[in-house]
């Protein structure tokens, strides 16, 4: 046998630096575009764009749309669309707002800011999202009504169910514990942020190690060891960098004084504390992780991509594509509810117009992130990066002082351009579009 052990001679032919790393070139391109956008705005705003404060704000502004975008990837991969996510967010937000301002304090007699209020409200909201999403999925999968129509109807229905539930009023202020999910009102602080960072770094190395061990076990070719470590180093740098930046955003002294006063303590002189990782961003990271696992490592994810690639083949392989549709839209519904938690707690109240136009932002984020409307292709991290790119464009232009109509014109153009570049990219790499 001429075959040698893969552990000692991993490559058949000498490879270049980049080939050995097996980078996802599409991901590199998107990160490149994102960096260019950031640098340009940083230049135009005399360095204000890339301050810890603005980066902190960017992350919490992106969270809501990005959470829904991860679900939209599954929807679009299976050749469906969901136009109702913004309205569904509003309905979930309205239900949760009523739960914590009327149902738990008055009907259940728990009073305001009871510790049970937050979990009850969120559970009920997520249940509502699950049921409504599953209902959409049932109409689409079992009654064969096109997703475009079902969710266009849902767009109108749920926007106005939200209105009906709240009589069109702004409901607030929301429960104190609930507001922890809103970003600035709920951050981990410096120490816990570093703990999360350390866990994330360990997790990244464990994942790399595990996948290498698996390949060695089955005697597949593996990357050179230095390439694995290089990837680990990149992940570490990204995680540590993000947490360092978020920790560098300092809590204003006046606010710190108030926090200490509220606890009945006095603030030590000259104390400086950073905000650290917002809970909403941690939530987004957790969801991204879970959704990536679902997409790559579960049967559900495999069936979603198979159905997107060839619905008939999936059905002939014994996959229940109707039930699959219900599951996908149910996931989308739950994610809308989670986004509703983040969005309403960020503004500390439920407003009648919450989530307006979010459906378009969410679809755009997924599509900019490389999800093909023809089905079968898309990634979770791409969608999140897409959401981040859109949000950066929007806030960057606002900081530069571009008027609102021009902002939207630019975002619209970027969407079309991004898809065109993606088509060119796929043509070059020989993938099917």
């Amino acid at each position: 046998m001429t075959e040698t052990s893969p552990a000692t001679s991993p490559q058949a032919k000498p490879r270049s630096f980049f080939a050995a790393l097996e980078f996802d070139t599409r991901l590199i391109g998107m990160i490149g575009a994102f960096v260019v956008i950031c640098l340009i705005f940083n230049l135009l705003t005399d360095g204000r764009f890339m301050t810890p404060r603005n980066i902190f704000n960017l992350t919490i502004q992106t969270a809501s749309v990005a959470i829904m975008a991860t679900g939209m990837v599954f929807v679009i991969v299976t050749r469906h669309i969901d136009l109702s996510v913004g309205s569904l967010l509003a309905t979930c937000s309205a239900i949760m707002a009523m739960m914590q301002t009327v149902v738990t304090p008055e009907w259940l007699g728990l009073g305001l800011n009871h510790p049970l209020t937050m979990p009850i409200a969120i559970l009920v909201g997520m249940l509502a999202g699950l049921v409504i999403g599953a209902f959409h999925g049932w109409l689409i999968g079992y009654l064969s009504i096109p997703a475009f129509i079902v969710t266009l109807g849902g767009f109108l229905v749920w926007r106005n169910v939200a209105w009906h539930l709240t009589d069109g009023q702004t409901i607030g202020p929301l429960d104190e514990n609930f507001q922890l999910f809103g970003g600035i009102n709920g951050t981990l602080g410096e120490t816990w942020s570093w703990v999360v960072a350390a866990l994330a770094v360990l997790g990244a190395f464990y994942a790399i190690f595990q996948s290498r061990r698996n390949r060695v076990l089955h005697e597949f070719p593996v990357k050179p060891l230095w390439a694995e470590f290089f990837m680990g180093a990149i992940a570490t740098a990204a995680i540590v960098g993000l947490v360092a930046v978020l920790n560098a955003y300092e809590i204003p002294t006046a606010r710190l004084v108030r926090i200490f006063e509220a606890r009945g303590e006095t603030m030590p002189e000259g104390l400086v504390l950073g905000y650290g990782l917002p809970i909403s961003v941690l939530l987004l990271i957790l969801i991204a992780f879970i959704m990536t696992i679902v997409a790559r490592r579960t049967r559900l994810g495999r069936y979603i991509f198979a159905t997107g690639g060839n619905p008939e083949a999936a059905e002939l392989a014994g996959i229940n594509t109707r039930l699959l549709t219900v599951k996908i839209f149910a996931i989308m519904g739950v994610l809308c509810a989670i986004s509703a938690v983040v969005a309403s707690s960020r503004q500390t109240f439920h407003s009648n117009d919450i989530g307006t136009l979010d459906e378009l932002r969410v679809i755009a984020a997924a599509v900019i992130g490389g999800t093909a409307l023809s089905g079968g292709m898309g990634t979770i991290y791409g969608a999140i990066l897409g959401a981040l790119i859109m949000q950066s464009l929007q806030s960057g232009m606002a900081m530069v002082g571009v008027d609102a109509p021009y902002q939207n014109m630019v975002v619209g153009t970027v969407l079309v351009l991004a898809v065109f570049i993606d088509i060119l990219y796929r043509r070059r790499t020989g993938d099917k579009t």
Partner: protein
Amino acid sequence: MTTPLVEMRDMQKSFGGIKAVDHVTIDLYPGEVVGVLGHNGAGKSVLMKMLSGALPRDGGEIFINGQKATINNPRDARNLQIETIYQYLALADNLDAASNLFLGRELTTPLGFVDDALMEAETRKIMKRLNPNFRRFHTPVSGLSGGQRQSVAIARAVYFNAKILIMDEPTAALGVQETRMVAELIDQLKSEGIGILLIDHDIHQVKMLCDRANVMKNGQLVGTVKVDEVSEDDLLGMIIAGKCPPNATPGPGAVQTA
């Protein structure tokens, strides 16, 4: 008399007012290759799809090993070890060979996650046996040639120990070399006692590969013949005119000769 592996009795299927399959009865014994012939639209694919669970039947009964079988969807058929190699529809183009081979029956880790490495290892093993030239385990199958795609589809049937194999024009998209490969494979599977139903309209190929052949016309069974006992012209006559040669077992679709 051994019991037939498959017996489809009095099968019926209509689309609108058109009787695609009209009271057809056929059978298949272990280690036998039985052809299903006919023009396009004769109903042969519809008949096979009722066996593979892809289409619900309007009437008729299916017996597997003499026992009445309930086949309402592809999963039922798979559970009865009926595997189908479709002409075009069988693969998800965006997934790689291993994902397609195990589609719907993924191997999982103890925690219930799909075990891609194990599936790739199994795929490499079976491919070494079926098509040693197959190397592209990491590209989506859309990037493979017709023959390579077909070998993925065949590997799927072989890997899961099919007892009954339905092949829908398995060589239609293949070159000479690959066609020979499929022919050898059919002989090999046959010697292992697997029953094969072969849909084809290449009469030469049917004469070469099959033991018996059923000819269909306009949804009806013209007749069943032993391919060694009839000439290619006889088969052509059955397909085109619905005329049964004297040594055939005529079906309800046979033209009554005076």
